[in-house]
């Protein structure tokens, strides 16, 4: 299986600030995704992180709010910008690994905005 290192594990942030979450994978990766899980809700796909180009965002998510980078095959960042309490969620990195048929998930980042 893949080892996915996601950090930070948790953070408490002031409204109006930004937080960058990192995701590093130790295996050959085909695709990388970012999900959000709001309290009591299921996982919602934010975007597909594309290597060397702009991410592909799902309906309801925009680049200005959730800028994503993927400079190489095994590393990606998600920034949550100009945060408000509504951004308090768990953010999860997910990857598709070469030779494995299902997605793996990072440990998640629990974000609380106060």
């Amino acid at each position, binding site marked *: 299986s893949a080892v996915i290192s996601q950090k930070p594990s948790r953070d408490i942030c002031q409204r109006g600030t930004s937080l960058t979450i990192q995701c590093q994978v130790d295996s050959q990766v085909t695709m990388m995704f970012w999900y959000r899980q709001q309290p009591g809700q*299921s*996982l919602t*796909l934010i975007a597909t992180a594309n290597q060397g180009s702009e991410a592909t965002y799902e309906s309801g998510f925009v680049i200005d709010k959730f800028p994503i980078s993927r400079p190489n095959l095994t590393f990606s960042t998600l920034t949550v910008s100009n945060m408000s309490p509504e951004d308090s969620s768990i953010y*999860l990195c997910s990857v*598709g690994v070469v030779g494995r*048929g*299902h997605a793996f*998930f*990072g440990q*998640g980042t629990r974000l609380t905005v106060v």
Partner: protein
Amino acid sequence: EDKVVQSPLSLVVHEGDTVTLNCSYEVTNFRSLLWYKQEKKAPTFLFMLTSSGIEKKSGRLSSILDKKELFSILNITATQTGDSAIYLCAISGGSNYKLTFGKGTLLTVNP
């Protein structure tokens, strides 16, 4: 738009009970159905189902898919307190890695 509906949303049982979790779906271009277990933050993979009628089994857990009726079930026999978690059902419509999730079933197993 792809859609996944899980039932029940929550379930409380006693150790030793058997539980059945349900997942129905709508998808434009079905590729696979997956089950994950979420205990804290990170979902961990349980099963991936692509063909109807073939049961997948791992210890006390098993799952089966019905592509005609568009549903899947996850069975857990002889439940243990360690089975307490959220069980997530997801479908893949275009890529095995890009998933649409249901709301999950919160299972609580009491001693």
